[in-house]
């Protein structure tokens, strides 16, 4: 069935002539018509533009001319990336709906790879901690779809697009991926260009991706990475380090039970598992992240606070005003502490390919006011280490939980291969009904 196809499966069918890009886009638009009134994932949908592009790509495919590995596949973009012909509103009334933008680097890379930019996905105001969108979790509409890449996660989870681009400054990309029962990747810091992205915090922002399958992460990362990643051979025997300190300790019993069951299944296939302790400095990670993000966010929004205080939400304005008060010395000291923590964390990978832990301490919370808990994701945004999530089961309330896989900086493909290996054992979740 078309709507169940992953990005790589859809791209494969189109390349083989078994699926026409026009049929792919039409099918997706039909699914949007059914699901969007319930889940509110999209801020802007370019229906006519997507159909016209699909018609062109249909002709090209029939002539054997594929633009790239994503030829004819529709993709959603978080509404903080600029895309030619589309508004960037970032869920804020301070943004000009008539402003004209060129493609961000990520969008340009996707177009070059043959993707059809279907539209913009909803976001928390400025991808920060401001006003959340009305995006709802397709697994239970009374629960959040996560954030701040709310629409990206919900759109993929609801089957209204096979893949979407998000961002992560704390936990904004992998959290919605996990909450919506799909795969996600936050690449190494700097692996994907941020040009054309509205920043939250320059030194913490990561463009990320959300897709139906871990295999898609390899395909899409290859298309949007700043430099083409060198292919690697997956290890014959995986050695995984389990972070029980903090990550399991702060998770609900329900989450721990699901994670332990998933790790047991991986262990039964010959994967070598060993607990890995955290360095003492790790306990300061949240404070370090807070001071860096707060300062950089306040600086970026200083002109906006000045010019658009009347249209900026009180929630965002209050945050930006408070964050402007962090003393400069504390910002610099936090940047020093970040380097010290990174150096203390690198030895954890000495004899482990990757580290594993829950993606979130609990499934998506009820209500839309909070987009959930990012505490298990923030450390990797702070350090710039690559991280992926794949579904690993359902909580007692029927909502998805994710297994998080983290690697050393620059080992993005190793993390993706580990996610693919885990997905082969744990399986993909079907689309929610």
């Amino acid at each position, binding site marked *: 069935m078309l709507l169940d196809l992953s990005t790589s499966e859809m791209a494969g069918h189109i390349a083989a002539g078994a699926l026409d890009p026009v049929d792919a886009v039409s099918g997706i638009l039909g699914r949007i018509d059914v699901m969007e009134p319930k889940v509110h994932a999209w801020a802007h949908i370019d229906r006519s533009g997507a159909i016209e592009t699909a018609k062109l790509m249909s002709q090209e495919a029939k002539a054997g001319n594929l633009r790239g590995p994503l030829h004819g596949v529709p993709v959603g973009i978080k509404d903080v990336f600029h895309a030619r012909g589309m508004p960037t509103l970032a869920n804020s009334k301070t943004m000009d709906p008539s402003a004209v933008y060129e493609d961000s*680097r990520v969008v340009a890379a996707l177009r070059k790879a043959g993707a059809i930019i279907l539209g913009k996905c909803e976001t928390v105001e400025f991808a920060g901690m401001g006003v959340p969108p009305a995006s709802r979790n397709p697994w239970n509409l009374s629960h959040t779809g996560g954030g701040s890449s709310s629409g990206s996660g919900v759109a993929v989870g609801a089957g209204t697009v096979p893949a979407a681009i998000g961002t992560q400054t704390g936990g904004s990309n992998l959290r919605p991926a996990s909450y919506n029962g799909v795969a996600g990747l936050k690449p190494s*810091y*700097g692996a994907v*260009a*941020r*040009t054309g992205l509205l920043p939250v915090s*320059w*030194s*913490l*922002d990561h463009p990320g991706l959300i897709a139906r399958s871990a295999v898609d992460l390899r395909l899409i990362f290859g298309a949007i990475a*700043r*430099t083409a990643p060198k292919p690697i051979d997956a290890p014959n025997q995986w050695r995984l380090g389990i972070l029980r300190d903090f990550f399991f300790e702060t998770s609900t019993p329900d989450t721990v039970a699901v994670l332990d069951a998933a790790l047991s299944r991986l262990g039964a296939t010959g994967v070598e598992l060993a607990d890995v302790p955290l360095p003492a*400095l790790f306990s*300061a990670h*949240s*404070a*370090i992240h*807070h*001071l860096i993000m*707060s300062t950089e966010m306040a600086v970026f929004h200083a002109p906006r606070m000045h010019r658009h205080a009347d249209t900026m939400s*009180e929630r965002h304005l*209050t*945050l930006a*005003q*408070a*964050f*402007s*008060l*962090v*003393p400069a*010395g*504390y910002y*610099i*000291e*936090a*940047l*020093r*502490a*970040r*380097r*010290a923590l*990174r*150096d203390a964390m690198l030895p954890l990978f000495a004899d482990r390919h990757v580290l594993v832990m829950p993606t979130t301490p609990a499934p998506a919370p009820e209500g839309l006011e909070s987009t959930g808990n990012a505490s298990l994701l923030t450390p990797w945004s702070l350090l710039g280490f690559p991280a992926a999530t794949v579904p690993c089961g359902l909580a007692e309330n029927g909502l998805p939980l994710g297994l998080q896989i983290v690697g050393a900086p620059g080992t993005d493909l190793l993390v993706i291969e580990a996610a693919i290996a885990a997905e082969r054992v744990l399986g993909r979740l079907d689309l929610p009904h």
Partner: protein
Amino acid sequence: MRLKPPVSFDEAYRSLAQNAVLTWGTSAAARMDPQLQSIACAMETVSALDIPDSVEPLFGENIDIDLLAEA
């Protein structure tokens, strides 16, 4: 605000609260109290860290290699 000797939560919070009134006014300062408390907590934690003198700040970057090459 000093970094060393380490500041307590109360010291950091008092300093932030005073600056908030001076910078944004009494009404706004009252509104942002939860944020000031979380910043003060983070300042207390970071102030207490013993980072070696040799460690330099880890800044971010967005060097677009392709654009640099084109330039």
